[in-house]
């Protein structure tokens, strides 16, 4: 097993172990307000990740924004084949959790240390909800 380059402990977690490319955002997220749910692109004008495709990514967001619709939206984007591999939140809200559980997408909340100190966009990371850790396996280019 690869020795992780860095490890983030999370407070709460759901889902199976997944690996993927990290996308680290300094701005919060709502699948309803920020995302084009047909292309998987973040389209809200001015969002810090505007233009980023979330498909198969492991997404780090500090917060969740608004939105009851995430409950269906995650299932919808999974059905369309454009879902991310996992959601990693600093602070989330119940809807994100209900939506991720409903869609079977791993989700975590609470982090130590914060991603800014451990992971960068493009790094290859593993989310292990059972052990409540996120491990950085390879640095991106």
């Amino acid at each position, binding site marked *: 097993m690869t020795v992780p380059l860095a490890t983030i402990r999370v407070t709460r977690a759901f889902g199976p172990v997944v690996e993927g490319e990290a996308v680290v955002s300094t701005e*919060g997220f709502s699948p309803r307000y920020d995302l084009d749910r047909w292309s998987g692109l973040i389209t809200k004008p001015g969002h810090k990740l505007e233009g980023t495709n979330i498909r198969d990514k492991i997404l780090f967001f500090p*917060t969740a924004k608004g939105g*009851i619709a*995430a409950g*269906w939206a995650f*299932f*919808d984007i999974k*059905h369309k084949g454009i879902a991310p591999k996992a959601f990693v939140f600093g602070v989330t809200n119940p809807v994100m959790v209900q939506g991720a559980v*409903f869609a079977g997408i791993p989700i975590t909340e609470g982090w130590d240390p914060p991603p800014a100190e451990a992971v960068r966009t493009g790094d290859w990371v593993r989310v292990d909800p059972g052990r409540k850790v996120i491990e950085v396996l390879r640095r991106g280019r």
Partner: protein
Amino acid sequence: MRLTPEEEAMLAGRRGEAARDALRYQLAVGEFFGAERFVPVTNAHMMGDIEVMGDGGLGWLKATGAKHARACVPLTTNARCFDFAHAARLGQDAGEAAKERELIAALRGMNALTTDTCINYQTLYQPHLGEHVAWGDTGTVIYANSVFGARSNFESGPAALAAAITGRTPEYGFHLDRHRKGTLVVRLEAALDDLADWGALGKIVGEKHQNYYAVPVFTEPRRAPVADELKHLGAALASYGSMGMFHMVGVTPEAPTLEAALGGNRPVDEIVIDTAALERVYSGYHLGDRSATLVVFSGPQLSLFEMKALAEAFGDRKVHPGTQVFVTTSHGVKSTAHNLGYLQALESAGATVLEGVCFYILQNLSRMRVANGWTNMVSNSAKIVNIIGAHKFNTVLRRTRDCVEIACTGRLS
């Protein structure tokens, strides 16, 4: 989680496959949050429409219906994405409209009341202090927690449906006393004369504290706010801040005093909202190409009182040629507004009044925007100017009377 014998039986499938699946799902969510048990709910309110659910969600709903899923507490539905009477004129997709009808039929088959309103708390059901419910959208939840003192988390469509099927929800978040105490204090020095002012207040506070568990305590309101004002405040707090609860000292039931509202918490922040703070919100919007071709009164749906006030604000004036005005409300409010003449007044001014929908979730909205050449969207709802972003509108919040002025002159400033 500790389960009652009834819940064990449900998990064992003795109330059918749908109830077993629903409870399993609720258990996974409850365990994530460390819930110790379930609490019974008396009422559920769910978001479910084809725009948000998509084909995958509709397929799931039909499959769940085939398992004889049935709501065992009153289950009402939130605003949806079609007002069928207007679908063709709005250029909405006939195929999606047919799916929306299938979806409505599937929900009715599960014993849902397809009421299609996001103002259930004004028009359908008012839970009492301490009553546990399972509601969504966010505006309904923050109103239930804050104004009624009822108890609900944000319950997404699948979660509210599961709660209606099992008659319970995991006990976490706002079902627990410890999350209902104030965490920050907001002193109100501004007059707050317009619904948009209350929304702007929610924007300022929500943007600064984006946290589901942040509970602002508003102090020293100049007067007792009315329901529509609290509705716009709550909707904006939930939208900008993901907040599920607020207190207002002397107004909301769990805030007889500031001390009671804080419940021993030391506030993490103290904010003063004065007139200048509100004016900074209004002056902070980019006016884009300065077009004023779209003015929207929606999000949340308008109450009867808002319909009356808006009809009076238009008076004998007409919507400017080239500008379109949309108003959304519930089936019941539209019917009453018709009986009382407010509907005719708005329509003769040139506004389009849609029922059972919210503007921002209208099916095909992005293409509607392009087809109509809309770039700016002007509204008196702080919530809708926030949430419509993914459809690439440039949004501008203005006070109600300014929105009417913009609609009638076609000039945005």
